[in-house]
């Protein structure tokens, strides 16, 4: 099913013409109205009219999260505050949060893109959507909520947490769609299983995002909850959830190119990379009013898939996010994403996906410890079987990443559970 047939299947040429028109409007807007951009363009010795085609995009300066922090709270807005109808902020683990403003039209556009995203991943107006993304400053809850209402589905605004109550409502209200972070979906799935209620739920689709998750985690969630687990991408600085979405083909996420221009750059040299090459995703918003961003560095590592998709949509796809460059660990010179370790663990029959990575430095050498919980499915009465499980995990990680790890088996529920984004890594080198 396609929500907006005309725009979602627009021929590439027309889509790119539309992108360029909107890019020009956006550049003129930010140059005139946002002092930060006027300054940045001057520094780069460029004017909006110097951008003569989409190919010139790379001439524009980047915007980073630090830029947003420095203009805290309203410095990036291109509208006076009386035209702003909503303000979100992303949690700042270090320093000030980043603030995002929306005009009435921005909220409407967001709802449209989110509704489009829901339909692309198989949700319909007949569905009952249990929205377990957090409501509040985080964009997940309200973003999914407005999209669900726009679509005409029934939305249960339960927000994150309160797991037992979530499950009661899921059973009693016969929820058919769950929207949550994948790690919270995992916690819900485990708890439903423990309560013996797997046969009592009516879910058919899960729309999971806001953190990277592996293909193997998808399989586990799909098997346990008997759903289609779909990946949604978004980030608050750009808009929130609904920037890109998986279609039924599950071969990458369509990024809505009538509203965003994606690029991939080498995070070290900052040079643009060809479609298909892996690097950092950079997004330019071309429809936003209140806070357009030019070449925003997302820190998310992926690649662009330009080949046409089976579903008929013409918007290019990004591959499932491999990780964030922020989350990337450098262990003895090797780049390691937590999601890669996760995929190794998920390959092992019966292993619970609760893990934590402890990075440390001992005698000037980086060490990586992988802590994995032992539940009844992998537990054996024999020490040697458990040791061979440790050895297998160690070997599989070595085969994939070439690094030696210490694998520690820990008791169930000793690794902290998350109701939002999971904390997978403890880097003691930084403490």
């Amino acid at each position, binding site marked *: 099913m396609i929500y907006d047939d005309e725009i979602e299947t627009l021929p590439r040429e027309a889509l790119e013409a539309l992108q360029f028109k909107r890019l020009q409007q956006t550049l003129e807007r930010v140059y005139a109205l946002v002092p930060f951009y006027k300054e940045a363009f001057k520094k780069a010795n460029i004017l909006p009219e110097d951008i003569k085609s989409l190919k010139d995009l790379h001439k524009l300066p980047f915007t980073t999260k630090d830029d947003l922090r420095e203009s805290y709270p309203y410095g990036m807005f291109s509208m006076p505050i009386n035209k702003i109808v909503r303000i979100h902020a992303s949690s700042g683990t270090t320093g000030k949060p980043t603030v995002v403003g929306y005009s009435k039209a921005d909220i409407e556009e967001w709802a449209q893109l989110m509704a489009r995203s829901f339909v692309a991943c198989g949700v319909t107006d007949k569905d009952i959507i249990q929205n377990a993304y957090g409501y509040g400053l985080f964009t997940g809850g309200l973003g999914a909520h407005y999209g669900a209402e726009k679509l005409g589905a029934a939305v249960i605004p339960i927000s994150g947490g309160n797991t037992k109550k979530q499950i009661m409502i899921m059973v009693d209200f016969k929820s058919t769609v769950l929207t949550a972070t994948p790690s919270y979906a995992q916690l819900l799935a485990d708890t439903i299983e423990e309560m013996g209620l797997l046969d009592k739920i009516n879910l058919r689709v899960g729309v999971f995002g806001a953190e990277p998750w592996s293909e193997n985690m998808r399989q586990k969630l799909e098997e346990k909850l008997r759903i289609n687990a779909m990946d949604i991408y978004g980030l608050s600085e750009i808009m929130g959830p609904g920037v890109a979405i998986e279609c039924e083909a599950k071969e990458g996420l369509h990024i809505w190119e009538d509203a965003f221009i994606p690029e991939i750059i080498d995070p070290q040299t900052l040079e643009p990379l060809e479609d298909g090459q892996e690097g950092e995703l950079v997004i330019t918003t071309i429809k936003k009013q209140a806070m357009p961003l030019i070449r925003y560095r997302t820190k998310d590592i992926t690649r662009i898939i330009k080949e046409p998709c089976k579903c008929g949509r013409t918007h290019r796809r990004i591959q499932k996010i491999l990780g964030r460059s922020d989350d990337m660990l450098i262990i003895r010179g090797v780049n390691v994403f937590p999601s890669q370790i996760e995929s190794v663990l998920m390959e092992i029959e019966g292993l619970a996906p609760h893990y934590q990575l402890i990075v440390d430095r001992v005698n000037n050498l980086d060490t990586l410890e992988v802590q994995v919980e032992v539940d*009844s499915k992998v*537990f054996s*009465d024999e*020490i040697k079987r458990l*040791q061979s499980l440790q050895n297998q995990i160690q070997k599989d990680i070595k085969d994939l990443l070439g690094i030696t790890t210490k694998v520690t088996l*820990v008791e169930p529920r000793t690794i902290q559970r998350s109701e939002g984004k999971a904390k997978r890594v403890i880097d003691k080198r930084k403490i």
Partner: protein
Amino acid sequence: MKRLNQISVFVENKPGRLLDVVEVLGNNNIDIKAISLADSSDFGIVRFICEDPKFAHEILTKNGFTASLTEVLAIAISDRPGSLAKVLKSFKESNINIEYMYGFSAKIKDYAVMIIKVSDLEETIKCCIANNIQILSQSDIKSIV
């Protein structure tokens, strides 16, 4: 019913974890008849025998432990020098491999009770019958104080 259900519990090698297990059992009036702790460098397995293993398993799981039921045999060996060797010899002749073994602290009459986990349960039961080695059932366990 010659087979006995033993509870095995996964514990990390951290101070007080064995105590935690034993306390949970004590709080639920579960009397441990025999217990052993096997460990590797960073984790261990607590194995024990009690009257109602299903109940003990349920209690432990409810309290967040990873536990399983394993079928073992409890054999009575007369408390005289050379008795254990005789039993082990019979096992060897029947090609039975003992994976682990631990003893009851209490005695019944002139017998010492050993818990054994073997490679082949059926074969071991046959061997015991053929060699007059007494196997205790779950109900026999009750009477051991």
